[in-house]
């Protein structure tokens, strides 16, 4: 069946596609982080928390490590108990990965019991693996 010179099924598909695209765009726009109101107190609090955590990281990390974190997105720390093992601590959601002899051998997943700014999370992993490795390994979930 046709409507004028256009098939009705084609018209229906076009209409459904347009509706779908608008639905997806609307959901995306609603939940896009850039829509978060910077004047909102909760946003400002979060920004300040991240800034403080970043400053703490800069103050505590050994010379050169903070720069490495900024350039590469991760820092590394040698295991004190397993020979030839290095832990790579990423700023991003990858978390902690394990390398032995230069080869990736697995990942570790450990989280604080309360939410922390991202800079504090990096420092948490660094301090625990540097100076409290056994306890960290006893708690973290090993993936692969």
């Amino acid at each position: 069946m046709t409507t004028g010179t256009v098939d009705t099924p084609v018209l229906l598909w076009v209409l459904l596609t347009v509706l779908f695209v608008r639905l997806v765009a609307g959901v995306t726009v609603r939940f896009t982080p850039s829509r978060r109101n910077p004047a909102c107190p909760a946003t400002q609090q979060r920004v300040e928390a991240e800034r403080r955590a970043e400053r703490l990281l800069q103050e505590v990390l050994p010379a050169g490590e903070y720069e490495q974190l900024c350039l590469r997105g991760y820092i590394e720390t040698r295991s004190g108990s397993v020979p030839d093992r290095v832990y790579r601590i990423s700023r991003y959601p990858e978390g902690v990965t394990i390398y032995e002899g230069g080869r990736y051998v697995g990942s570790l997943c450990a989280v604080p019991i309360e939410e922390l700014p991202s800079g504090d999370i990096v420092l948490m992993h660094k301090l625990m693996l540097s100076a409290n490795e056994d306890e960290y390994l006893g708690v973290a979930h090993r993936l692969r």
Partner: protein
Amino acid sequence: MGKLRVMAPVGDRTVTWDRERAEVGDPEAREAVREAERIFEEQRKRGAVGFKVGPDRVAERIDRFEPEAAEIVMVPRIVGG
């Protein structure tokens, strides 16, 4: 100055004390040391771990408050993710 920094969701909470004045018995400085120690113990009871830190030193875990430390960072208890 000695510093105790406790990691928290809103950014670290910092408590400071004058180490030299505390050593010579200044009441205000000693009170600040006692407050820092109280916070340290309170966090330990919640499962936090304390570390002596500094840019020129290797981090060291400590289980008791050390007023002569230049900087102590307390990390909250962690669990498997």
